[in-house]
């Protein structure tokens, strides 16, 4: 291997890349767009729950319970209803996602020591939001019940639960998404961008020119990889910086460890991109193949948004073949948990294997010869 020739290939690739508008869009505009969308626009945090009230009791006690709901900061009153039909209608029209129904006799039962009931009618169509709404409601009702017991001079309930959340104390979905986004953006750079490189040469007919030069296969592949590794590392640094500085995502681990492991992941993923590129002579086909074999699975099956533990067993087995799965453990571990190599060494080893395999596969499949 000759380093001078390798760098020459890199320089040529950079020149070509700078002139290619859509590659530049993929490399810099798309990560920015994703970061803004995920950072600002979307989240799973359930706040300002549109709540309709059906207060058939209408006593100071029922109003006190409702006040406990408003004071929690999660629920917003949007409507008052006074019968079952109206309650159904607000749910049907999606004006409210939950109806709190306090039946007549609520205050009387509470005073006499019988169990008073509250009903939460929740729009279950969005199962996830509904589950969270019910969890919040239950906690508020329990807290209110405990207060009523205390004020009535009765002993408190015998079992307390003290809950503490680690790593992401306020349970913000942004803290979960942004470290994951580092991995997703790398997949875009590595797989989609590099998938264009060799097929571009075929499409433009410059592969013949390349073939007539003395560069070896490994020099071509590695030379072409270098610029993308640089872009990828820049994107990782920029994404992390924006995440930490603008979106207040905690960064508790080692920057150096993140850099090293990101590099390993990038190497493997770009290798796969070149591998795809080597097999397809049209850029369009290469992008589509790269999207299906590496980008979509990384997005869906890596645990980025959907917990792997919730998937059915066969799908869970497939996730072990997806390198982004391991990288995601790494980014979340370093950002949120602040763990080091002693915890992440298994993932690091797998990613090192992935890197070697990716580059080797690319070199082996790429044939310079013109048939």
């Amino acid at each position, binding site marked *: 291997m000759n380093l001078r020739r390798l760098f020459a290939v890199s320089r040529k690739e950079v020149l070509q890349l700078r002139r290619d508008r859509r590659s530049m869009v993929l490399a810099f*505009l798309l990560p920015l767009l*994703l970061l803004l969308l995920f950072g600002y626009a979307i*989240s799973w945090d359930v706040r300002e729950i549109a709540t309709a009230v059906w207060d058939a009791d209408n006593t100071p006690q029922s109003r006190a319970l409702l006040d406990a709901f408003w004071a929690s900061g999660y629920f917003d009153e949007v409507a008052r209803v006074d019968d079952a039909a109206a309650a159904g209608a607000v749910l049907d029209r999606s004006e409210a996602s939950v109806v709190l129904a306090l039946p007549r006799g609520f205050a009387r039962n509470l005073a006499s020591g019988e*169990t008073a009931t509250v009903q939460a009618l929740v729009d279950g169509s969005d199962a996830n939001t509904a589950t969270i709404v019910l*969890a919040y409601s239950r906690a508020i009702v329990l807290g209110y019940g405990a207060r009523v017991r205390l004020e009535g001079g009765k*002993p408190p*309930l015998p079992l307390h639960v003290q809950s503490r959340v680690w790593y*992401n104390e306020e349970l913000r979905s942004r803290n979960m998404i942004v470290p994951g986004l580092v991995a997703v953006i790398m997949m875009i750079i590595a797989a989609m961008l590099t998938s264009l490189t060799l097929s571009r040469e075929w499409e433009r007919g410059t592969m013949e020119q390349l073939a007539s030069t003395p560069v070896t296969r490994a020099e071509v592949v590695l030379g072409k990889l270098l610029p993308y590794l640089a872009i990828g590392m820049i994107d990782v640094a920029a994404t992390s910086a924006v995440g930490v500085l603008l979106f207040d995502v905690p960064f508790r681990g080692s920057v150096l460890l993140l850099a090293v492991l990101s590099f390993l992941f990038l190497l493997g993923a770009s290798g796969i991109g070149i591998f795809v590129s080597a097999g397809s002579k049209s*850029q369009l086909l290469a992008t589509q193949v790269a999207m299906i074999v590496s980008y979509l699975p990384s997005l869906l099956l890596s645990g980025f948004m959907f917990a792997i533990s919730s998937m059915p067993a066969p799908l869970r087995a497939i996730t072990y073949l997806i390198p982004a799965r391991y990288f995601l453990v790494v980014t979340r571990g370093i950002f949120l948990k602040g763990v080091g190599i002693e*915890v992440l060494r298994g993932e690091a080893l797998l990613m090192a294997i992935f890197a070697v395999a990716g580059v080797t596969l690319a070199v082996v499949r790429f044939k310079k010869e013109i048939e």
Partner: protein
Amino acid sequence: MSAALGFSPARVAEMLRKELRQIFRDPQLYRILFIAPVVQLLMFGYAVSTDVRHTRTFVIDHAGDAASRRVVEALTAGGFFDVVGRSTRDADLVTELDHGRAVVGLVIPPRFGADLAAGDASVQLLVDGTNSNVATVALGQAEGILSSLGVALVPPTISGETLVPPIELRDRAWYNPDLASRDYNVPGVVGVLLFLVCMLLTALAVVRERELGTLEQLMVTPLLPLELVAGKALPFALIGLVDLVLVTLLAVLWFGVPLVGSPLLLLFATVLFLLPSLGLGLLISTTSKTQQEAFMASYLTLVPAILLSGFMFPVASMPPLFRTLSLLNPLRHYLEIVRGIFLKGVGLPELWRAHLWLLALGVAFVGVAAARFQKRIG
């Protein structure tokens, strides 16, 4: 050109026949049109799940008595929590959470049974918040289970009364009583797939014609620009409708998602939704010179459109600015309709606004695309 005086359905039909023949001659396209949606529905249907069950739980039991065993039993009984390990050293829990081998830690203090008999016991729950969604849900489940256990555990001898909880929350989930996330997600996938197929393929088809230079051939025929646009877009509208039937059947028969509302209204809404989808595809085709460029532009449109549609992230959780912006997103309105029809069984009285938005967006997108198309050709 005397032949080009009025809009002629016969000429459009002729062009439609040519387009369909061209599409079905390409075996690769065939795969994209019919096999890809099925594969994607299966993948999304299984992977996109936000149900939280079998959460990995590590137990630190300092008490080791009958009462502490009852707590663990109660927690695991419903299938929401699985015990993956036990220990009596707090440091072990830290290791398990750090490694991600456990998501929830339950700490039971020493003399738990005695404390409980005295009426004042506590347990600690530690939750790994890395996945905020799983953590929120698991925390709610655990607190619910443990507090109802607290009521059940009170020995009547102490309080002298049979204890009843002072207040009880009865919850009922409408439309989706089991709170299965699949019932919500699969109808959403229907919308995303239709959007993808119609927009991307329309854009690619027109640009390919330009790449091959056959667009000029079409221009010298007596076809009006509007007829040309209609002839290009219609085959994909037909394919979109076939995909709708295919994917809906799969959702209902394979995934068992209920279709409570009217299939006829679903069809009507889909026709309305095809308008803006095809319009966007045509719009992209007027700005791209190569198929590769059209693919990138479609992708850059799809990503924000899907993320800001409420498909995975609720519209209600967006900041006000983006909530307003998402009104311009046809997918958002279509998903509202699809989910309303599938799960809630509601009809036009509840959904007319979303239909109107689709129509307005469709007219706008197709109008702009047709105008730009005309200018480029003329």
